[in-house]
């Protein structure tokens, strides 16, 4: 089943075309890798999907429903979650509170309810705390729940951000270079977590990553882009052996 359908997506910044009539279908369940050399438009694609940029042309649909015109917070409500290349956690909130913020769209207790601590609010807070702790436990960092993220090792901070998306129950998780800055054992751990996350929670991940070993080991399908255009979408083996992909990465002469 197609979860995310990107159709003829184009984004121009003045005269620069960052993404050009890109069409990608992301199937529900599992990791879909998105690769391309530096400046090929991968991050722009994520920004278009999460609503930070408005596309110049084209459409984006989640589970068949058009989301092209929605604001970022409205997309979060319908199930688009993401992490950032440079970690964007809230510095004045604890790790647990950060992860709980991931579920902000699922809570409906009114202001009055909060002040009076109504049963609905109490139930929501408990449920949110439980889900957030569960996500932290899954990532193996529950001990840091009441810490501030700046006191955690860098690799753990990345996991907190992923936990925030996981706890939100987002249908589609956009991960922007989650392995950047991690050491090899942390990368291995991240790979295991991503695979297990898809098995246990049935998550769908659109993964942008420069570490090919990690990406190829966790992805079921990979799309390669260059200069904002799609080169190929296919299984990892097919993409790795695709002459155009090799050309994009290594230059024209190397495919000889």
């Amino acid at each position: 089943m197609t979860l995310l359908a990107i159709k003829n997506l184009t984004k121009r910044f003045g005269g620069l075309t960052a993404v050009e009539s890109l069409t990608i279908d992301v199937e529900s369940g599992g990791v879909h890798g998105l690769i391309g050399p530096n400046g090929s438009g991968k991050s722009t694609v994520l920004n278009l999907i999460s609503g930070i940029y408005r596309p110049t042309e084209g459409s984006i649909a989640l589970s068949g429903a058009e989301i092209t015109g929605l604001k970022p917070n409205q997309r979060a409500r319908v199930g688009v979650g993401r992490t950032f290349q440079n970690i964007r956690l809230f510095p004045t909130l604890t790790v647990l509170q950060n992860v709980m913020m991931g579920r902000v769209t699922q809570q409906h207790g009114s202001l009055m309810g909060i002040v009076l601590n109504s049963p609905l609010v109490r139930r929501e807070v408990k449920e949110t705390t439980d889900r957030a702790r569960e996500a932290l436990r899954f990532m193996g960092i529950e001990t840091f729940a009441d810490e501030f993220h700046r006191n955690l090792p860098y690799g753990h901070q990345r996991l907190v951000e992923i936990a925030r998306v996981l706890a939100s129950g987002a249908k589609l998780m956009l991960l922007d270079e989650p392995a950047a800055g991690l050491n090899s054992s942390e990368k291995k751990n991240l790979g295991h977590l991503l695979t297990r996350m898809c098995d246990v929670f049935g998550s769908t991940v659109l993964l942008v990553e420069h570490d090919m070993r990690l990406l190829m080991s966790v992805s079921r399908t990979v799309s390669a882009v260059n200069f904002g255009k799609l080169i190929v979408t296919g299984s990892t083996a097919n993409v790795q052996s695709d002459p155009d992909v090799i050309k994009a990465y290594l230059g024209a002469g190397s495919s000889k």
Partner: protein
Amino acid sequence: MRLLQLVALAFLICGLVNLLGLSAYTGSILIFASINILLCLGFYVIFGLTGILSLAHAAFMAIGAYTSGILSSTYGWPIPASVLAGTAAAALAGALLGIPTLRLKSHYLVLVTIAFGEVLRQMLINFEGLTGGLTGLAVAMPSPVEWFGVTINPGNRTVYLLICLLSIAVVVFALDRLRRSRVGHSFEAVRDDELAASVVGIDLTYTKILAFVISAALAGYGGALSAHFVGFISPDYFTFDITVLVLAMVVIGGKRSIVGVIIGALLLTFLPEALRSLQDWYPTFYGVLLLLTLWLAPYGIVGRLEQISFFRKLLAPRTAVIEPVEAARP
């Protein structure tokens, strides 16, 4: 903080004041201090929590004071109803100012909010028929009421102080609950990182306007309370100086903490009285104090105290901090 404890504290302070038989002068200062606390709590929501530097606080005060004053004096509304109407009018004005400033940042936003205050003041001066213009407006003083055979006279300073203190108790209780809820965390998220906040699912428009509304409502309430205590209002009472004073109170006390803004409000209400002898030199002293705070304690007195572990536990009891050794383990 429990509501009952706060209410008990309000009664205790009031009883103590009554017992000590403080002079009318000191009583008045205490009431102004309480009103300043309310103003500062409003400023805490918009500036401390949400990080929006809106300098229209005096304008919201004026809206509360004039709405309540006009309704009670000219139209004969009972004072409790007119005060509530004043609060609601200020809240509405907060929403109206919030909408056009949504897309503005830093000094642009500051300029628009200052302009709003000045425009409003000019309106108060020029709509003479309604506001009394520059000469001001005499405001009805609260009259005694009889409840179950007990006569309560809010015109009495002690009773008025009690009303102010009880208001603070309720507001502190509500804000403390809000601060620790998803709403308070949304305010902080918007302040820390707007982009991440919206991607997480926080509605920036709603959150910012809510902060404006709460802040303006508290300012309006404080303004209305002061109008009915003084018995007279004029545009001169709601100048930009008042906003700057509130800003200074919040910054010096600690903009990120409820206790902090209360300390700041108390300090800057009593200090000018204690330092009357400095006369013209007072503003200098004041400026130096503000600069010293910004330099030595960017999060105010309470921000400094929180760095001392004893006070940290007292002010913000968070759960145990993990030892660094344990944190290093995977």
